[in-house]
């Protein structure tokens, strides 16, 4: 698998992922592969103190790879270099990542995978800088409504004082 380095910006930058069957394995190993799913996975440094991204052996409970990049049906006849260009989506959080491609069989069971990093998941990592999600409009409204709340309170105080002076 090949990817670009540098900090990628959510919503803007692109990743080109290329994957293919390791040519050194015995022929016929890929006969059960039906779909390939390529996913964005959290590197260990981004899993620290974040239990919702934990790596667990049982794949059903594993939360390492939460963002799907692409899913393609697998054709054993064409088992060399496939590639896909993906724009980093706007809901991808700021973190350090690697990429993994899973091969699934006809029963949607994972049968093989490959990844852009080593077994300890320490090399060849890249970072994504997420969008903030903030908007000038939202910011302005927040400030205006806040000021309005406080000012109206003092308006009420002033009104109270005036009314208290009037006879009942």
């Amino acid at each position, binding site marked *: 698998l090949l990817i670009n380095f540098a900090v990628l910006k959510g919503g803007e930058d692109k990743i080109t992922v290329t994957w293919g069957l390791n040519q050194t394995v015995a022929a016929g190993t890929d006969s059960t592969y039906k779909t390939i799913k390529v996913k964005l996975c959290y590197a260990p440094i981004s899993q*620290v*103190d*974040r*239990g*919702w991204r934990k790596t667990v052996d049982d794949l059903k*409970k594993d939360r390492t790879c939460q963002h799907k990049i692409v899913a393609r049906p697998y054709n054993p006849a064409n088992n060399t270099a496939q590639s896909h260009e993906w724009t980093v989506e*706007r*809901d991808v*959080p*700021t*973190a350090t990542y690697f990429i993994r491609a899973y091969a699934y069989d006809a029963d949607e069971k994972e049968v093989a995978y490959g990844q852009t990093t080593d077994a300890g998941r320490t090399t060849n990592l890249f970072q994504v800088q*997420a*969008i*903030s*999600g*903030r*908007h000038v409009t*939202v*910011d302005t*409204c*927040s*400030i205006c*409504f*806040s*000021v*309005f*709340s*406080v000012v*109206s*309170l003092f308006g*009420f*105080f002033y009104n*109270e*004082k005036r*009314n*208290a*002076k009037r006879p*009942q």
Partner: protein
Amino acid sequence: MEIEGQATVKESHPPKFALPVDSEHKATEFRLFSVAAPHMRAFHLSWVSFFACFVSTFAAPPLLPIIRDNLNLTASDIGNAGIASVSGAVFARVAMGTACDLFGPRLASASLILLTAPAVYFTSIASSSTSFLLVRFFTGFSLSTFVSTQFWMSSMFSAPVVGTANGVAGGWGNLGGGATQLIMPLVFALIRDIGAIKFTAWRIAFFIPALFQTLSAFAVLIFGKDLPDGNFRRLQKAGDKTKDKFSNVFYHGITNYRGWILALSYGYCFGVELTIDNIVAEYFYDRFDLQLHTAGIIAASFGLANIVSRPGGGMISDAVAKRFGMRGRLWALWIVQTLGGVFCIILGRVGSLGPSIAVMIVFSLFCQAACGLTFGVVPFVSRRSLGLISGMTGGGGNVGAVLTQLIFFKGSKYSKETGIMLMGIMIIFCTLPICFIYFPQWGGMFCGPSSSKIATEEDYYLSEWNSEEKEKGLHLSSLKFAENSRRERGRKQDCETRPVDETPSTQV
């Protein structure tokens, strides 16, 4: 510092009320579906505004899966923000109690609500773990409107129904903590479906609780009245109100040991409730591998039980008081809260999903009923410093929440289930001091009323005023309250000591 005290209304202009009232013009009946001014209107205004504050304070937890990715939060950041959200109110509640004594519940609560609304609006602008912690901290101050709610109800409703009024108002306000777990994900989904991206949608969603909070404060200011006869300021200018000194109110509040005992015990019913609000969704999610929204629904049901459990506690308090007086209120509180502790221990031990949910619901019923029962006792601890005692008790609730989260739910020292079990044990221990509460005129859990001559309701409440103050007539409303509180002797005692001389309810 000069402050407004209780109102002594001149009988020259007796106003008409929709509900039957006593000599202080407090309602002796509680009619839930009425909005009649001033009593029931005050009730609806206070519970709705308190509900809004709860919705705001716990609006973040259900959206955390999105927020934690947007702001790059760690589990520690989230835990600290959770503790911050309940710690602000520790002192704010005590301050609120005093503010109610000084300025009246209407201005005190509306001021706090409008001053904390900016924190909710600014949640939309949060961009780091620090800013997130700060907005949760300041938003949490709004939970001290609990005290103004209880103070207001204690000022509007008479002894036979004060437990019910306090329980329903408190319970329906606390409901906000459960409702928000359902509301916020729905609002978020709606905004996202309209077209906003996730990291923007949650920010916009926070405008809903913020606006709700602002509008409820306006309603309180426009439609509410501090006392059955009017607002503090106007009554004061017309000469119908007495002034009291802050230092005296403070002194008589903090020197009353019963206030401290109730503050401790409230920390282990309400404090536990707040802790559970913060941790239970994660507990079910992790232990039973549920989907986040399923865990959220279960979490919501804990808070939603408040619709009946806390009012139920208040009603039990009033019902028990009819027959057994204050002693009954104390026994009921101790029994219910201790049982809450027992079910908490069981919850920590249960390992399968269905029974766990069932035990959690039973636990919530007892825990929240204990909250209602506590505020069946609080109105009688002091008359002069009612606000401060309410504030101390309320503040104690938040201290309990901070303590339990710090001891049992921070970091990985205990698994959540062990933490829950240990919390249950702590509940049982911290409920025992209730056995030491003793009123000379009514008795305590294990002792009957004092047989000495200076042990009547008047003696107890007037002991808060010295002879100088009595000469100035500052104590008159305490006197009225003392008369009305004679009911706390219970039916048996009352018949023995006062066969015919019952204080009648004034019907106007």
